[in-house]
């Protein structure tokens, strides 16, 4: 069976869904292929733009500061590529990058406003939400349910960490201890922290309860009221002004639940950032899919891009495989946003690192060929360190139009664009830039693809 469209997006995480939405919004017929869920669904749900420079110990206080540093130090970073505009003056490069990033963030916030994952935070500054370990991390946007306006600025704030018995994902006493030690060390509020454990029994038993079960349970009527009744005396006993809960406030009704809880206990409630796969990651994925669909995009879930036809420097067709059917999709332009190792856009074995759909050239963090890099030799001895792992910076390298290039430095195909984690030149885990790069590169790739399609048509 055959189909036709203007733009075919391969990959359904943040980059692909942003790109697809932008194209559909511009009136292009857009199809998105997704073989499985992505690292976006797997994430904590916080949208980082840029938190750290590699190897640095101090986080950036604003994304703008971070983007300027990246543009100066890493000219081939996906953010830096935005600045390569024809005829641009050197002094305008950073403004261009900052402007595009701000546009993306503003656009995304607006688009997600009425979904189950509306965002809080602002391009003007980084925020430092608390994780379920009791640490903080720099990010730019979090979901409204995860945001606290004044916990870390209000002098008299008192924080209560609240866990659930039988839920192994979060230990409130350890988190409280870690967080308080950290606050004392830097001498900032809150100066008083407590912890407690509540009982929820989604299936009648208060043990072996997973986070998503609690979230789904709280989606049901009246369960949040029960939680409030348990929480209220704990809040009063400690005199808490704020309550930190693990990210389980609901899948569809998290916003309502937050409000209801706050009304009944008289303190501000927010979700912490959790381990993957977290409920806010699930909410974000669902919200992005809804955004794409309501703008008119068509999604082919469970379809994997398996082969392509390229003639005269252009891709004309991609074949997609469902469990028991195959189809050919013709398009004027294509966006590759298949992710890295989790999403499956890149795969590494003893023969090297490959791009899995088109077999595009892969490069290392130093922009040498990664085609013969043995993955196990491209990792750091220490699992978690500020240097990260070089293998995370491998991927595709782009021309200024966001098209992957080959060994000669020219685009591999005139109508293939790329975005998201499949790109080389950044390590999201140490920079804290994952969903930011995905959104901004998806936005940029789509802009170039839209221009291309409109010119050709």
């Amino acid at each position, binding site marked *: 069976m055959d189909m036709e469209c203007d733009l075919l997006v391969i990959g359904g995480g943040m980059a692909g869904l942003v790109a697809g939405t932008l194209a559909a919004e511009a009136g292009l017929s857009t199809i998105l292929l997704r073989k499985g869920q992505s690292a976006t669904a797997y994430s904590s749900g916080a949208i980082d733009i840029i938190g750290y420079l590699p190897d640095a110990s101090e986080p950036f206080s604003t994304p703008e500061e971070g983007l300027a540093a990246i543009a100066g130090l890493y000219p081939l970073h996906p953010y830096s590529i935005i600045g390569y505009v024809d005829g641009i003056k050197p002094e305008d490069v950073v403004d261009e990058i900052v402007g595009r990033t701000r546009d993306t963030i503003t656009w995304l916030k607006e688009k997600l406003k009425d979904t189950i994952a509306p965002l809080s935070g602002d391009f003007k500054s980084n925020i430092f939400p608390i994780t379920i370990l009791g640490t903080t991390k720099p990010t730019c946007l979090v979901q409204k349910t995860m945001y606290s306006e004044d916990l870390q600025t209000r002098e008299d704030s008192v924080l209560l960490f609240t866990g659930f018995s039988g839920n192994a994902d979060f230990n409130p006493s350890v988190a409280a201890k870690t967080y308080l030690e950290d606050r004392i060390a830097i001498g900032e509020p809150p100066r008083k922290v407590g912890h407690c454990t509540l009982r929820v029994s989604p299936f009648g038993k208060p043990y072996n309860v997973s986070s998503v079960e609690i979230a789904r349970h709280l989606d049901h009527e009246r369960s949040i009221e029960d939680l409030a009744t348990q929480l209220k005396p704990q809040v009063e006993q400690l005199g808490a002004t704020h309550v930190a809960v693990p990210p389980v406030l609901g899948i569809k009704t998290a916003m309502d639940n937050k409000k209801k809880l706050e009304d009944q206990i008289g303190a501000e409630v927010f979700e912490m950032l959790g381990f993957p796969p977290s409920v806010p990651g699930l909410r974000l994925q669902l919200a992005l899919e809804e955004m794409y669909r309501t703008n008119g995009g068509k999604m082919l879930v469970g379809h994997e891009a398996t082969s392509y036809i390229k003639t005269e420097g252009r891709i004309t067709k991609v074949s997609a495989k469902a469990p*028991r059917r195959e189809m050919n999709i013709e398009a004027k332009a294509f966006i590759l946003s298949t992710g890295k190792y*989790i999403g499956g856009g890149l795969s590494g074995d003893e023969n090297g690192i490959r791009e899995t759909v088109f077999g595009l050239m892969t490069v290392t963090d130093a922009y040498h060929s990664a085609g013969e890099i043995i993955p196990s030799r491209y990792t750091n001895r220490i699992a978690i360190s500020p240097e990260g792992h070089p293998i995370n910076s491998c991927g595709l390298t782009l021309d200024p139009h966001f098209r992957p290039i080959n060994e000669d430095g020219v685009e591999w195909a005139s109508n293939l664009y790329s975005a998201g984690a499949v790109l080389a030149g950044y390590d999201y885990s140490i920079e804290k830039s994952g969903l930011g790069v995905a959104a901004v590169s998806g936005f940029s790739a789509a802009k170039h693809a839209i221009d291309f399609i409109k010119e050709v048509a």
Partner: protein
Amino acid sequence: MNEDEAFEYVKNTLRKEKITPYHSHELEVVKSVERCINCGLCISHCPVVAAVGVDRFSGPRSIAVELSRSPPEFWSTADVVYLCTGCGTCREVCPKNVDIPEVVNLIRARIFEHRPDLVPKSLHVLREVLTEYYLAFEPWEDKEEKNESRDMRLERLGLPFVQDKILDKAEVLLYPGCQAEERAQEVREAAKVILDHFDVDYTLLDDMSCCGLPSRLMGDHETERVLAKQLKEKVKKLGIKTVVTTCAGCTSSLSDISYRNEWGVPAVHILEFLAEEIGLEKIDSATKGSTEFSDVHVTVHDPCHLIRHTSRQITDFALDILRQLPGVKVTESEANDSCCGGGGLVSYHSDDVAKAVVKENMEAIQKTSADRLVTPCPLCTAQIESNLFKTGSSVEVDDLTVFIAQRLPKKR
């Protein structure tokens, strides 16, 4: 003992050790487990976990990373693997597409072979029916009564009766599947009405036999092979070009065996046949004049075996056809693609689990405020209809094939 002798010796101990080596066609499934990164995304989406919790059904990840590990110990997983409805949601959301539904079948097959005492009793009963009649349901004893039941259904639904066509040679084989053959006869009849209306050169089997999906799901490879072989011989003899079925389970199962056993002909759902072979324009002009029906507000349920085991595109065919039927308004349900609980033979032995799974669909269907639910699968139809009825809902349920056939003008 030389190397060959040692190999033979070990091979001969396998039976005693309760190990069945993997067949070559199972190896791909086994290898897919190696790709699991233990991320747990599947748990967030599994409808059985959502319905009964991880404490009762430990979920797809547990099947992939724990339960699939040690062949001699497969029996110890019996309390969990029989609760999987085989909906395929886990495989579809998995970033690595680990084939968990097939892992379940593979484990069930090992339990069936080595510890049949742990296979739920009702599945043994089903197996007896399958081996005796080559059908998933005991056939009607009295042919007359079967025809009476069919006529009552046709009358209630306002469908004309088209004589059975059983030819020696034809272009298309209409394969209704066990449910439509023995229970939901209206679906089989509706398919005949549609094919007849569009002058398709089709035939039915003179002796309908099961595609083998139920045997596969309970792990009874032997019966599965016998059924598949029978069907292949019948198909080959007819010299047909396409198999058309009205059942979602049969669509995926027939697609599978026609590929694996080299039938050389595709097997498609009647929706695919309508959209791709007949064409939407022809359906449009055929249904345009039908004014017999008052306006109806419908919502659609997408069967797992069509969308997750075959292709999501088939849903779009269903919607395309529905949207051009006169007087039909479609509202999509929030849980349109959520498993109805009727799969994986779960309802045979753990009806409470099947009922808990379908609850999500019930609530979402009510929310659409549609008067009718349509779904292109007689099994989903039965599962959803009986559960809606028990909750006292006024929403009616129709198989989509019936719904379309009703809206074709009466011929002759």
